[in-house]
C-alpha cells in the first residue's frame, strides 16, 4: 500500500468517499450507568448454574427467579465453576483438594527465597499458545487452537512426578512469573492471572508475592484506591519485610518511571 495515511489526511480517495468519512463518528465510550448495569447482570448470571445462566441472560426475564436461584447457587459455586470447564484436567480435579489445604502464608523473606528457588528449578514451560484471533474456530476461519492450558498443565503434571508440594510451588511460581511478565504491557491480563492464582492456590506458598503483584497491576490500571487497600493489608500481613520497601516503590514511583499503558 503506497499511502499509509488515513484518507481524510491524504485526500487520496474519491470525493464521494471523503464526504461520507467526514460525517463518520468514532465509537462512543461506555457510560458509567450502562457499565454498572452490565456488571450487576454479569454478577447475577455468574451465580447461577451454567445452563440456567445462559437461558436467563435473555431480556425481559424476571429477576426475582434469578436472585432466588442465585442464593442457592452461590453456596455451591466453586464446584459449579470447576464442572463448567469443558476439558476436565488434573488441575481441575486437584483444585478442591488445594482449596481445603490452605497453606499458611510465609513471611516476606522466605517467600522471596522460595519464589526465586522455584523459578530457577522450574521445568521448561509446556504452556502452548492458541492462535490469538481464534477463541474458537468458526466463521472467521481461524486455525484450530493449539494445546489448551488444561492440556498443557496435564502434561507438565505427568512429566514432573516429584513430590506434590514441590510441584505445587513450581506451578505457583510459574503462574506468578507469567503475571509479572505482563505487568508493564498488559496489567489487566496480569490481574486476571493473579486472580486465577488465588483461586487455584488460595494463600499458597507465594500468596504475599501474589498480593504485591496485584498491587502493582492495580496501580498500572489506575485503580488507586484498591491498590492502596491491598497494600495496607499486605503491610499488615508482612510487617518489617522487604515488601514494605517494594510497596513504597510501586505506589510512589520516582519521576521517569514507566507510564501506565492505555488502550484505544
Amino acid at each position, binding site marked *: 500500500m503506497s499511502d499509509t495515511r488515513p484518507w481524510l489526511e491524504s485526500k487520496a480517495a474519491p470525493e464521494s468517499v471523503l464526504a461520507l468519512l467526514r460525517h463518520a463518528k468514532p465509537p462512543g465510550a461506555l457510560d458509567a450507568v450502562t457499565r454498572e448495569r452490565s456488571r450487576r447482570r454479569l454478577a447475577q448470571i455468574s451465580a447461577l448454574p451454567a445452563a440456567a*445462566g445462559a437461558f436467563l441472560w435473555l431480556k425481559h426475564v424476571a429477576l426475582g427467579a434469578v436472585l432466588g436461584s442465585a442464593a442457592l447457587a452461590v453456596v455451591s459455586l466453586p464446584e459449579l465453576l470447576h464442572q463448567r470447564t469443558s476439558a476436565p484436567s488434573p488441575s481441575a480435579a486437584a483444585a478442591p483438594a488445594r482449596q481445603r489445604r490452605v497453606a499458611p502464608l510465609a513471611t516476606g523473606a522466605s517467600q522471596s527465597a522460595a519464589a526465586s528457588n522455584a523459578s530457577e528449578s522450574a521445568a521448561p514451560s509446556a504452556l502452548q499458545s492458541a492462535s490469538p484471533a481464534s477463541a474458537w474456530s468458526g466463521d472467521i476461519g481461524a486455525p484450530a487452537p493449539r494445546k489448551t492450558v488444561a492440556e498443557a498443565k496435564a502434561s507438565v503434571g505427568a512429566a514432573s512426578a516429584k513430590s506434590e508440594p514441590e510441584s505445587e510451588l513450581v506451578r505457583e511460581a510459574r503462574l506468578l512469573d507469567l503475571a509479572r511478565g505482563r505487568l508493564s504491557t498488559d496489567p489487566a491480563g496480569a490481574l486476571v492471572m493473579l486472580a486465577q492464582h488465588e483461586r487455584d492456590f488460595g494463600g499458597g506458598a507465594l500468596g504475599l508475592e501474589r498480593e504485591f503483584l496485584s498491587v502493582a497491576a492495580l496501580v498500572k490500571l489506575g485503580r488507586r484506591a484498591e491498590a492502596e487497600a491491598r497494600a495496607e493489608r499486605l503491610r499488615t500481613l508482612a510487617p518489617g519485610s522487604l515488601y514494605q520497601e517494594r510497596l513504597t516503590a510501586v505506589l510512589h514511583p520516582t519521576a521517569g518511571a514507566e507510564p501506565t499503558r492505555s488502550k484505544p
Partner: protein
Amino acid sequence: MTSASPLSNVASPAMPADVAAVHEAHADFVWRTLQRLGVHQQDLEDVLQEVFLVVHKRLSTFDHSSQLTTWLFGICLRVAAAYRRRAHRRHETLGLGPEEALLRDGAADPEQVLAQREALRRLELALETLGLERRAVFVMFEIEGISAPAIADIMGVPVGTIYSRLSTARAEFTRAVERMEKQEKRGRP
C-alpha cells in the same frame, strides 16, 4: 473459590474475581469494538452481555499467550458475526440505522439533520459490504485514526496483515459508495 484465604476479596462470591477483573478493565474496549464491528446503538448493551457471557464461560481456556484484548477481540468477532446475520434481516425490515442516535442529539437545523442522517445511512450501507475484520480495520484506521501497529496489537496479527486488510477494505468501500451513486443517478432507492 478460596473461602479460607484472608485475601479473597477481589470480587463478591457471586462473580469470580478474574471475570470481574476482565469486565472492570475491558468492558469499554468491548463496547467500542462492537461498534467498530457494526453493532447498532440500540443493541449494544445486549450484545455486550453476550460477549461477557462467553468470557465467563471460556476464561478458563485463555492461556495468556496473547493479550487479553486480542482474545476479547476474537470473541467480539464471533458474537458480532452472529449479530450481523440476525441484524440484516431485522434492519432491512425496520429500516433502522446508526443515524437513530442522531435524532437524540437534537441538532437545530433540520436540513443539516437530514443530510447527516443520509450520510450516516450511506456510510453504514458501505461498511456493511466489508467483512467484519476488514470493517474493524477500516473503522479504526480511517475514522478513529488509530495507527496500523496499534491495530495490529489489538487484533494480534502482523502490521503487514493490517495494511493488506486496509487496502482491500478501501477498495471494497469505494466500490460500494460508487455503486450507491450509480443507483441514485438511475433513480432507484
